[in-house]
Structure formats: structure tokens, C-alpha cells
């Protein structure tokens, strides 16, 4: 794989990786864009089928490779796969936090909140609030 020119962009907002789900939170995030609701351009989204399918090692990978925080847009009770989705996703967050502690990463660098398919404003405000929290962390 080739690496491109290494010059940092002007952005100073914390880099947030969002794990979203294609049937529930993706439409909400897309709607934020459609309605031109602005949030920091340092927010990147990876879409998955279900928030219970996120591997803790991916979260660690993101945090060790430059992301300041990982935000999980959880399916919660709306999940079409499992009624225990919130429970499963929560376990993933807890497992990740144990691994993060071992590597001296502040456990607040992973965060989970339920996000629905029309949650455009809530998504933008989550990003703003989480960005502020991450900016204040010194680990």
C-alpha cells in the first residue's frame, strides 16, 4: 500500500471514529448531511450491520493509530437482529476499556450512545459534546 504526502491538515478538532449501522444510525447520520447540519470534519464513519459486531481490537486499532476517540452509535432496542443488542454492545465497550487500560488509554476514549434512523441533530450534538470531552482529556 502506498502512503501519500504527509502533511497535517489544519484541523485541530479531535479525530473521532464512529461505528454506525447500515439500517439504523446510518440514515440518521446521512440525514444530518442532507439537512446541512454541521459537525466536525474530523469525524469518520464506518458502517456495519449491527453494533454488537464491533470487535474490541478494531477500537484499539483506531486509538493506537491516531484516532482520539471511538463513538459507537448503538442500535439498542431498535436492533432488528437481537433484543439483547444493547447488552452485547455494552459488553464490547467494557471489554475494550479493559484492553485500553492495559495500554494506558483513557477509557473515556470509547463512548456508546443509541442513535436512531432520524437522529440527525442528536448525532451532531453527540459529536460536538464528545469532541469537547476528548479535547479536555490528557490521559
Amino acid at each position, binding site marked *: 500500500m502506498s502512503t501519500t504526502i504527509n*502533511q497535517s491538515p489544519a484541523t485541530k478538532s479531535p479525530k473521532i471514529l464512529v461505528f454506525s449501522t447500515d439500517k439504523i444510525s446510518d440514515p440518521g447520520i446521512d440525514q444530518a448531511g442532507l439537512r446541512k447540519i454541521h459537525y466536525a470534519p474530523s469525524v469518520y464513519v464506518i458502517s456495519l450491520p449491527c453494533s454488537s459486531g464491533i470487535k474490541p481490537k478494531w477500537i484499539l486499532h483506531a486509538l493506537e493509530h491516531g484516532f482520539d476517540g471511538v463513538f459507537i452509535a448503538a442500535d439498542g432496542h431498535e436492533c432488528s437482529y437481537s433484543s439483547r443488542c444493547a447488552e452485547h454492545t455494552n459488553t464490547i465497550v467494557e471489554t475494550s476499556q479493559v484492553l485500553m487500560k492495559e495500554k494506558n488509554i483513557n477509557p473515556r476514549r470509547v463512548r456508546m450512545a443509541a442513535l436512531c434512523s432520524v437522529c440527525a441533530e442528536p448525532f451532531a450534538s453527540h459529536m460536538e459534546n464528545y469532541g469537547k470531552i476528548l479535547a479536555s482529556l490528557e490521559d
Partner: protein
Amino acid sequence: MKQRIGVYICHCGGNISDYVDVEELGKMFHQEENVVVSKDVMFACADSNQKDMVADIQANKLDAIVVCSCSPKLHLHTFKNVAARAGLNPSNYVQVNIREQCSWPHSDRPREATVKAAGLIRAGINRVSYSESLENIELTVKKSALVIGAGVSGMKAAIDLARSGNEVFLIEKDFFVGGRIAQKQTLFPTNQNGKEVVTFLYNEMKKFPNITIFTGATVEKVSGSLGNFSVDIKVKPRYIKPSADKRSVERAMGECPVTIHDDFNLGLVERKAIYKNYPEALPDVPVVDAEALKDAHDFTSKFASTLNLNEEAQTLSLIAGSVLVTTGYDHYQPKEGEYGYKTISNVVTLPELNRLMEMNPEKLVYKGKQIKSLAFIYCVGSRQTKGDNKYCSRQCCTSTIHTSLQLKEKYKDIQTYHLYRDIRTYGKQELMYAESSKQGDLYFKYEEKEMPVVSVDGKSTIVKVKDYLTAKKEMEIEADLVVLVTGMVAREDATTISELFKIPIGRDKFFNEIHPKLKPVETVIKGVYIGGTCQGPKNVSESVQSSLAGASKITALLKSGTVSVDPIIASVDANKCTWCGKCSDVCDFTAIKEVLFGEKHVAGVNKAVCTGCGICAPVCPENVIEIAQYTDNEIESMIDGFMMDFDIKEKGTGEVVEVEEEGKVGMKEYPLVWREILAGMTAEKNTIPEIVANTKLAGELVTFHLMTMNRYGVVVPAGMDAKETYYYYKRK
């Protein structure tokens, strides 16, 4: 690893390129060693570009493509089809969303939007580098369908399925078909009798030899999957000897000395222990409550040749290619004391009133008293901000108003008071609301924070309500009967069906479809569909629409005898698996089972059952489970892609709109909509309404595209019309 990748970056007219420097990005990615084609295109989805892509893929022997444009919700399948047409496996295609998730939300910061777009595209290229060609999974399916629940939805679906040549098993928990509509004397808007509809549908079903109806039947066990569900059903006995003649059965019914709770009439009266729900109920064989008759020895010995109280339940095994669940709903049952229910003698629910009306053809009498005035309290058990049922039950407003019209028609001298929160008689049903107002029904609007209060004052029942339409004035209404308009709730046994078929249940406790708009009758369980009110509150026509949609889906699915399913499922590296069972424990679909791999025990994935949700992957202590298209390599390489820094030149603030000449925008031909708009510009200059009238395109669409066409100099404004309402546009 893919080495010959094609990257297409879309301007989307200007929706992307106004803020993201797509031309620069196109050039930049062309320098990547595994990228063979990198282009910026005006509209990636335009037919002309799709043709170019097919030509590129074939001429350059591309092994993967990345399209950077809008949300995959819009064009994922468009480009998968492009790949397929060019002979490229559609799995080797990645869609990157640089519009909804980049140019639009970051239109305030164009330079950073370009940096982000570069990261997103890089991530897409990284991901597609690891993509693998996947083939759909082919399964053999049996051309038979199991329909659970013989209400109006289930019966209509069964008829349609049978007409399309499928073998149909229709099972009903009750001993008689018809479900809830049999309890309604009239149905809006046609005023048909519910029982007549049931009889009509039953007789229709009887015309099809390929429909088998089981009543008094419940699902006991389910195994298998799409194409071959194996379902055990238990058929409860009717305790009537098959040899018994109709006359002796009728005599037994007439002479039966024991009475029991009448479920069909909601407990308002009692019925005999040998019963039919109503005289015309079908199938035309009564049922015996054997438990109630166990001590009536004289009676049972007199009818020994008719009754068989020792008859046992039968268990049958059915094989079905697909399943349609139409199990319906329960009425919300008010708690004791809720608006005086069960504590004040003349408080009933709307379904109870409907039964009372049928039982009282001349005068409406309840507990010996003639009813002259009724107060309806709406939204009981629905729209509870703090309660369990947050949803609106959709049909109750209409059902109440319909009942109110029926009351007046049937009993003439009767006054109704309606205490409502909002009247939701949507669509044509609004006409009934107008009719009700015209006939003198009185409406009072209350709010949830100040609910009506039902109390007893001497012999009178008083309902106090603060009417928000008259400045919250407190009204006191004396009513002979208070009717609680109760909504629909999920059936109590919905959890049993959910557990048997693994159908997910929503927060409202109804069954969950995959997507309310795009997959409204499909569940995440392949081959299992839902229809009618088991999915959520619906009126009869909406219920039938959804169950017929389910029936059509099943017919299409079973038609060819084989079915092709999405290959995005879990896979286990059997060499490394040490079988701990954790993956199997978390799988709600029982898609993972312990299997033998050589001599060792490992996790095996049932391809027909796996939904690809990925819940099993994070719990594996050995990390040997991956989901196709969401592998560690794909996800981690995307993260690496996001993190790469790019040197992006300033394109401008985004506030200045660059008007480019037609030739410069690089279009070989205009998009179809533009061509239609130009064809619709029949005069020298035209207003938007004129173009809309000429083209039959939606006004908003014409406005949007005309603005873009103006920006690119395809059309130009040409003054205003005489009334100064609309601008004229003409071709440049």
C-alpha cells in the same frame, strides 16, 4: 490483494464539487500504485458514465472499483449492477459516501471537507484491496408456505398463496377462523359485517384443495431454515366424535348444563361448555370444554355417542419453504381503577361496547339500565409518554367515530361525548369525523398532563375534563356509560412465536420488520415474513395490504424452487477454532452449531440461517470468526486510510460559485432529467410551472435541477413573468 482498481469521484452536479475538490482528488489517486483508473465524473450514476465504467473495467482489466458519490442507500445496487455487467464480481465494489457524510455536513469548511473526502476515498481503496469475490448461496426450497393466524390477514394471504400454486398450511390457535374482525358487527368504511367477511373468505379458501386449515393449533417446535422449515404443530381436540351427527351435536349444545367464561364476548356474558363463538362460526363444528364438563357425568353419559372427552391432542409435522406470521394483536386491557375500569360499574372498553351493541339490537342496555349517553375517553393505553405503549394505535379514533355513527343509526336517541387528545382519522376516514360532528357528537380536547377523571356522584357517573378548546374550562359530563377507547398491544403469546422463529421484537413488543419502508414485511430471518397487526397497529385494509405483500414475497421466493441468498455471512477458521461455544450462545438465530472438523470439535455456520449480523465475531476468544466484507483486514485498513494525511490545496471558500462553460464540465451528454427539462422548454422562455406541466416531473426536482443547469450555464434566467411570480428560463 487487488492491484487494478478503478476510482470514480462524482461531482453530483455541484453537490459534492462545490465543496470538495474532486478534480484534485481524481488526479491525486491516479498516482497510487494499485489504482489504474481514477476519474472525476459529473454524475457517476448517469447512463453515459455507467457505460464508460463498464468499458473501463473491461479495457483495463480492473479487479475492483470504488465509487465515491452519495450514500450507498441510493446507488449501491446501481454500481453493483455496473460491476456485474462488466463481468466483475459485485463484491469487489465499494461505495464511498462523500456527499451525505462529507460535502453536505462540511459545506462550511470546504478545505477540510476535501481532506476528509481524501481520507474516506483512501479508506475505500484500502477496503476494496482486501475484497474477495463472493457468490450468492443457492438453496433448494419447498413450494409450500405456513401461515400462522387465520384472521382476515392470514386468510387473504392463504388464498393468494394458494392461487399462485403454493401448498398452504394455515394454522389458527382458536377453534374458529376469523380473528378479531368476527367480533365487529360492522367494519368501516364499507359497513360490511365482520362475520360475513369471515364466511366469504372461508368459503373462498375451501375452493382451493391446496389449502389445509388447522384450527385449535399451535406451533410447538421449529427447526430448519429458509426453503425447508420443519414445524411441529399441536392440534387440540374438539372432543366431538367424528361419527357424531349434526343433530345430536346441536342437541348436546342445547342441553349442556355447564356455563363458562365467554371469551368471544369478552366476558360480558357466559356461554355453554359446548360452544361455537357465534352461530355461523367456521369450521362448523362446536368445541367442548372437557375440563368444565368433567363432573357433569349424567350429561356426558347421555351424549356418550356424541362426545369423546378422552380425545387427545395430535402433534403433526409440516414442512414449509417459507413462513408468514399473521398472529394479530390483543386489545389493551385497562388496569383495575384506570378511569374507573372494574371499580365503577358502568365503565367499559370500546371492544366491549362493540359486543354489547351486537347483543342489544333494539335498545342499548348495560347491567339493566338503558344507555342514553356515552362518554368516550380516547388514547387509553396508547401514546403514553411515561407508560409502556408510546405509540399511537392508528385505528382507534376511526373505530370510535364509526361506532358513534352506528350508535346513532341503531338507537336514534343517544348522545355521545368524545374526550380526545388528537383526532387521527387520516385519509378518507376524515369524512366520518365530519359526519359525526354533523350529527351532534360533542368533542372535548384534553392533554396528557390533565387527564379526564371518572367519578361517581350518587347514582350518576361524572367525567370531568379540562377542555383545551375552550381555554381549559372544566367540563362535567354525566354519562350512562363511559367507554375507554383502548388501543392495540402485542399479543401475549408473541414472545413464544418470537422465540420459536427467532423473530426480533421491537420496543413496542410487536414483531420487527427489517426496514419500515424498504423491507416492510421481511424479518431478519430468511424466509420468515410478517403481516397484519402482529407487526404494529393497523386497520383492516392496512393489515390485508401487508399480509398480501408478504404473500407476494413468498410466492416470488418459492417460485423457481431454488433461492439465492446474500453471501455476507460469518465464517469460522476451523483450523484455529477450539470450540468454546460462546459464539453459539450469543447467536439468536441458532446459526452456529458444534460440528466435527476432522477429529476436532469446531463451530459450524449454517449458511442458510446466518444473517451476517456479526454478533458472534467479537465474543470469540481466539478471533477466528469474520463476517464477509467486514473482515479485520477490511476494517483496520479503512481506519489506516482515514488516518493518512494529505496535502490538499485551497479550492476557495465554497461561497463563490464557479460558473463553468458547458464544454468544461466534461459531460458527454446531459443527465436524463436535464434532457427531459430541456425537452419540456417548448417556448422560447419558460417558467418552472410550465416546465413541470410539460414534463410531468415533480416541481421540486425541476427547481433543483434547473438551478444546477443555471450554474453550469445550460440555461439562463430571462426575466420574470407579468405577475412577477416566476422567473423565466431559456436555453443558453
